[in-house]
Every structure is written in structure tokens, then in C-alpha cells.
């Protein structure tokens, strides 16, 4: 790439920044109450007061998209945190100690890993029931194997290296070696995976609430808004386009950003 500007990083960062601002604002402030219905404004078009128009119940679409995307962010962030935390824990311990438990856990891990995460999450939801928190748990569990795999292979690599061998000789305890010595060195490999995981979590959350499993009505979520809008899309395309484009921008911004970060020397 030479001296070429890292456009991925710049554009991705800009889009992600704007979308984050948009989502976080939705938590503190919305122009209108997202759940208040107004029969007079049913399918109202774009206006100064309602920049995205109104939906089939006369609710303000901009406010709903804002709160909905905040819900998506909330689920995605907690999912990735949950997946990363347990993934790192399992990957670090199995990679470091090895042995029969490692063998068994990794067999199970590989099996789960081969399974599409949405499907796995559906299984957990069928056991736990629907709702926002259950979706976080379900998706979080589904995300663990991927992270565990990456962290484990890093630990396998690092534990044989000289600096760890000398740390052992210096009498440093296992836990300290695992979390203070090896883990920071595994971070550069883990970070891109976390970013890709975030995008997958956004997609999975949207997909699940599209199926009616995630955030429960009347609270808005992007996926559910899309599935509700489907019946009215001919009459009011903006009902489909608003949540859809916001969803695309979130994913696009984040994938550009992670591409850009990877390319950086």
C-alpha cells in the first residue's frame, strides 16, 4: 500500500463514529416517544417534524430506529463480551494446561463451532424462552467456541516460547503467567476476531428479532421493525429502508474499520 492513505480506516471510523453517536443518543434522547401511537400520522411521509416519517401505528420512525439500533448495540456488545470472556477463559486454560480435559473440551468445541451460530442460538432460545436477555445468553454461548479456538492456539504457540520458560524459572505462578504474560500477547490476534464477532452479533440479533425471538414488542428493534414493515413495504417503503439502511451502515462501518486496523503496519 506504501504511502496510500488507509481509506478503510478513515471511512470506517467515520461511519462507525456517526452510528455510535446515533445509537447512544437513542438511549438518552429521541425526538418523539418511540412507542406513542398517533392515528392521524399513520404512514405519514417525510416531514420536518418526522424526518423518517411514521409507521403503520403513526409512531415516529426516526425515534424507533434510534432506540432500535441502541437495542441492537446493547445485545451485540454484551454477546461479544460474554463470548470473549468465556472463550478466553476456556481457550487460555485448555491451551495452557492441555491434557485430557483439553482434548474433550476441544472436541465439543469443534462440534459446536461447525454449527451455524444462529441455529445454535435458536436451540438455546427454545430452551430458555424468548426475550432480550435470553438472546444475549444464547448468542453469547454460541460465540464462545470461536473465541476459545483462537485463544487456545495462541496459548499453544506462546507457552513454548523462551519468555514463558524463563517466567517459569523465575517462579511466577501459572495464573499470573496466563493472564499477565501470555494473554496480552494473544490480544493482537484476538482483536480482529472480536470485531468480526461484533458484526456477526449485530446480524444475528437482527435476524433473531426479525424472527420474533429477540426484543419483545412494543420496544423497537431493527429486526422486528423490518419484519413488521414487510406487510406495508409497498405503501410505505421508508418503513423498510430506514431500519435496513441503519443496519447496513452499522455493519459496513465496523467491517471497514476492522479491515483498516488490520492493514495498519
Amino acid at each position, binding site marked *: 500500500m506504501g504511502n496510500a492513505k488507509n481509506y478503510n480506516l478513515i471511512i470506517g471510523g467515520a461511519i462507525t463514529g456517526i452510528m455510535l453517536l446515533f445509537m447512544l443518543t437513542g438511549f438518552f434522547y429521541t425526538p418523539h416517544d418511540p412507542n406513542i401511537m398517533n392515528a392521524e400520522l399513520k404512514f405519514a411521509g417525510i416531514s420536518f417534524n418526522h424526518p423518517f416519517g411514521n409507521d403503520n401505528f403513526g409512531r415516529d420512525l426516526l425515534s424507533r430506529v434510534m432506540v432500535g439500533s441502541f437495542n441492537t448495540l446493547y445485545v451485540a456488545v454484551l454477546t461479544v463480551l460474554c463470548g470473549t470472556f468465556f472463550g478466553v477463559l476456556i481457550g487460555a486454560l485448555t491451551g495452557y494446561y492441555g491434557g485430557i480435559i483439553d482434548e474433550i473440551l476441544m*472436541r*465439543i468445541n469443534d*462440534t459446536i463451532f*461447525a*454449527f*451455524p*451460530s*444462529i*441455529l445454535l442460538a*435458536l*436451540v438455546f*432460545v*427454545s*430452551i430458555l424462552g424468548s426475550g432480550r436477555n435470553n438472546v444475549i445468553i444464547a448468542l453469547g454461548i454460541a460465540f464462545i467456541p470461536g473465541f476459545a479456538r483462537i485463544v487456545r492456539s495462541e496459548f499453544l504457540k506462546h507457552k513454548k516460547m523462551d519468555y514463558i520458560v524463563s517466567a517459569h524459572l523465575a517462579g511466577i505462578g501459572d495464573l499470573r503467567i496466563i493472564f499477565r504474560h501470555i494473554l496480552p500477547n494473544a490480544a493482537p490476534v484476538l482483536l480482529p476476531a472480536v470485531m468480526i464477532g461484533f458484526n456477526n452479533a449485530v*446480524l444475528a440479533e*437482527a*435476524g433473531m428479532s*426479525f*424472527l420474533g*425471538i429477540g426484543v419483545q414488542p412494543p420496544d423497537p428493534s431493527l*429486526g422486528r421493525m*423490518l*419484519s413488521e*414493515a*414487510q406487510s406495508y*413495504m*409497498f405503501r410505505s*417503503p421508508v418503513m*423498510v429502508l430506514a431500519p*435496513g439502511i441503519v*443496519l*447496513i*451502515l452499522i*455493519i*459496513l462501518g465496523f*467491517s*471497514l474499520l476492522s479491515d483498516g486496523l488490520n492493514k495498519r503496519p
Partner: protein
Amino acid sequence: MSYALQKLVTMLITLVAISFLVFLSFHLIAGDPATKMLGTEATPERLAALRTEMGLDAPFLIRYLRWFQAFMAGDFGSSYSYNMPVSVMIADKIPITLALALMAFAFIIVLSVPLGIYSAKNANQPLERFIMVVNQIFMAIPPFFAGIILTLVFGLIFRLFTPGGFVSYKTDGLKFIGYLIFPALALALPKAAMAVKILRSAILSEMHLDYIRTAYSKGNTDKQVLSRHVLKNAMIPFITFQGMILAEMMAGSIIIEQVFGIPGLGRILLSSIANRDYPVVMAIIIWIAFLVLAVNIVVDIIYGLIDPRISISEKRR
């Protein structure tokens, strides 16, 4: 040959392990099916009678073995909510979901291979840059949103198909395929865009290697180098990705079926999850697991065919 056989044995063991895990988790959480079936009509006597009849009083492992044996023989138990055998319920749905997933997969290959090769050949030229920008946007489109847009544009505006007008393969095979074109396209577009990107970067990174310079110095043209040398190696990451995708296509079709009103496995799975109809959920999960594993095996075998290095290093492990 022994390589394929070894893979097959691993697959069977994994499948047994999955079935055990699924049975165990549903056994732990689902509670007592007999109580569920009787509902408000449950009395201790009737409960005990039904439990004996269903074989629920046997120890867990025995019940698992019985269930597994029946499953292998094609008897997946009966649905709680419909009181009919699960095998009957899902038998004619599997072809629908499978056809959708395979069509989407075919679209991915057809779209991504030429585009990936084209963009690698013309890397960083103006038109190629434009294609890659569009490609990056397509990667970010959730399949169900693509499905809604395709329905809006091609179903409602251009009237190329009737949304919701699904025709079963039993009635008219051609119309069935015709209806699946747009759902498959919706499912394929984002993944095809990813495949283009992967193929492009795989080809580009091969192009810098020494053996390519050797091939050129022997007097090969661009076309010969690409088709005889580069593609063979660049195909490896591409095929890995395709294998992962095919599994995801099965899961993705569950959502796309909802968008286009296709009565496949996805619809039964969702309604069974809502009704807590566990035998149906279990059967569908294991079926999909089976299909996923089967795909993995096929991918592994293709690897072995393309790249002899792989089966050797596998054996050493």
C-alpha cells in the same frame, strides 16, 4: 481412500456425540413430556400410565439408547402439539430447505468466481475499485433485508414473481424452482460478496510468490499462469470459505423462508420452538447437524483431491 474413510468415522462419532448432547440438554431442561402431553388433565394415575407407555420410567442412558436406535431407524418420535410422527412432518420439508440452500450456494459460486478472478486481474483499476466499493456494501446487507428489497423491487414493482405464491415441488417442479430464485439470490448476495473478496485476496497473495515468477519465466502467458498455477492454490481458502458457507446457508434459509413465505424446515422449527415441541426441534437440529457434517466431509475430500499435501499432514497428526 483411507483418508476419506477416516473422515467418515470421525463424522459418525461426532454425530453420535451431538445426538447425545442434544438429548441430554433437552432432557435436562424440557422436563417431563408426559406432564406436558396431558396438560390440565393430568392425574397421578394417568401420568404414571402414560410414562410407562412412553418408556419414560427407564433410566436416562437406556432411554437415550432407545431413542437413538429409533432415530437411526427413521423414527423420530411424535410431535407433542400435532400428535403425528415427526418423520412425516419433516420428510417433505427437507427437500425444500435443501433446494433453497443449494440454489443459493450455486448462485454464490456463479457470481463470485468470475468476479473474484476479474477483480484480481484488474486490481486497483478504476472500474475494479468501483466494483470493490459496491462489493463491500453488499457484504454488509443482511440476507433478510436483501430478501425484502428483492420482494419489493422484483415482486411488487416488476411483478416477476408473486410474493407468497410458493408452489410445492410436488405440484410443479419448474414453478417450485422458479419461486426459489429470488429467495436464493437474497441468501447468496452478501456471501457472494464475501467470496469475491476472499478469492481476490487469495489470488493476489499467490501472485507474489516465487513459483509464479518461475512460471512466467518459462514463457507462460497471464492466462496460463492463472489457470494452471495460481487458481489451484488460491482455491484452497476459497473452498474452506465455501464449506463454512454451505452450513450457514442451511441456517440462513430459516430466516429467508420467513421473508418469502416458504413452508420449509425453518417454519416448522420456529413454530416448534414457540410451542416447545421438543421432539420436532431435536429431530430438525440433528438433521441439520448431519447435513453440516456431510458438507464438511465433502469439503475435506475435495481438499485431498486438489492438494495432496493436506492428506499427508493430516495423517501425521
